[in-house]
């Protein structure tokens, strides 16, 4: 946990002593698998730094359709925007597996940010990164075909959660076809069709709960239009 904390983007550029003060002002937080850090629309007053486990960020619209915005793991922040605005949580954060985190109340984080401007800059940088990645996703949805979008989603996930295995690189999170559909603006049928096609071509190997990229380069070719 210490390593995760020291290398995370939120605390980058702070001295060890400063990091300690920031951490001492937070509280250790544990939640079981399948429960939520927060729900979309709830009043937002706590932000988190994930130190263990995986979190799914999703939104639901009025008709009940779910969209998955992201998966986060150790070192990622949750609800960083809470420190910088007063809006309710814009999405829901579910612990896909049991999670540990450090939690700060908004007011505590705000005063820490005023004390250590680097902390505020780090928060802004994290939000800037999310903003850029959302722009890319928007572009994907507006301009790419479904097959490309699925390839690009897998490549994003492998960058975050990839783990080298004998057959290739495994995406080390629980990832159903339905999840992939909800990440790429399509449906289960389309995702199944595409994955089956790739499996036949030996590009991916489908596991019960995740996907192994056997020929990652082929996916880059599909995703990037090479």
């Amino acid at each position, binding site marked *: 946990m210490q390593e995760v904390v020291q290398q995370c983007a939120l605390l980058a550029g702070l001295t060890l002593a400063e990091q300690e003060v920031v951490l001492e002002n937070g509280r250790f937080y544990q939640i079981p698998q399948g429960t939520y850090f927060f729900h979309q629309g709830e009043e937002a007053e706590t932000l988190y730094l994930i130190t263990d486990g995986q979190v799914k960020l999703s939104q639901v619209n009025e008709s009940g359709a779910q969209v998955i915005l992201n998966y986060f793991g150790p070192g990622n922040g949750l609800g960083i925007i809470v420190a910088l605005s007063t809006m309710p949580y814009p999405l829901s954060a579910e612990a896909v597996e049991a999670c540990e985190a450090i939690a700060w109340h908004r007011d505590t984080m705000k005063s820490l940010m005023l004390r250590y401007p680097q902390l505020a800059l780090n928060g802004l940088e994290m939000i800037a990164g999310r903003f850029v990645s959302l722009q890319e996703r928007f572009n994907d949805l507006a301009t790419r075909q479904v097959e490309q979008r699925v390839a690009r989603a897998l*490549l*994003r996930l*492998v*960058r975050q959660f*990839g783990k*080298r295995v004998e057959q290739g690189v495994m995406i080390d999170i629980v990832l159903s076809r339905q999840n992939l559909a909800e990440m790429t603006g399509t449906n289960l049928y389309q995702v199944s069709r595409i994955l089956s096609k790739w499996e036949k071509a030996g590009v991916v190997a489908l596991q019960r709960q995740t996907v192994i990229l056997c020929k*990652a*380069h082929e996916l*880059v070719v599909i995703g*990037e239009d090479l």
Partner: protein
Amino acid sequence: MNDPDEKTEKQTAIRAALVELTIEGLLTRWPQTAVVFHQHNMACVGCAVASFYTITEAASVYGLSAEQLLDELVASISLA
């Protein structure tokens, strides 16, 4: 100072180090090698799986000779 044997020795050492490295490891340590990948139209720079594959594996994916690619990478590093 510029003993040719010494240079060869250094190059051999670099080459031995390269065989073990992932693409990302290589590009982090020697960013100037990016140009070699571009010259071969390889999409390795910034690739999502660059941290999982070695230079030899990348060469094989692109149907290139790993030996030749390693030679070129060593040369680009030694230029500096």
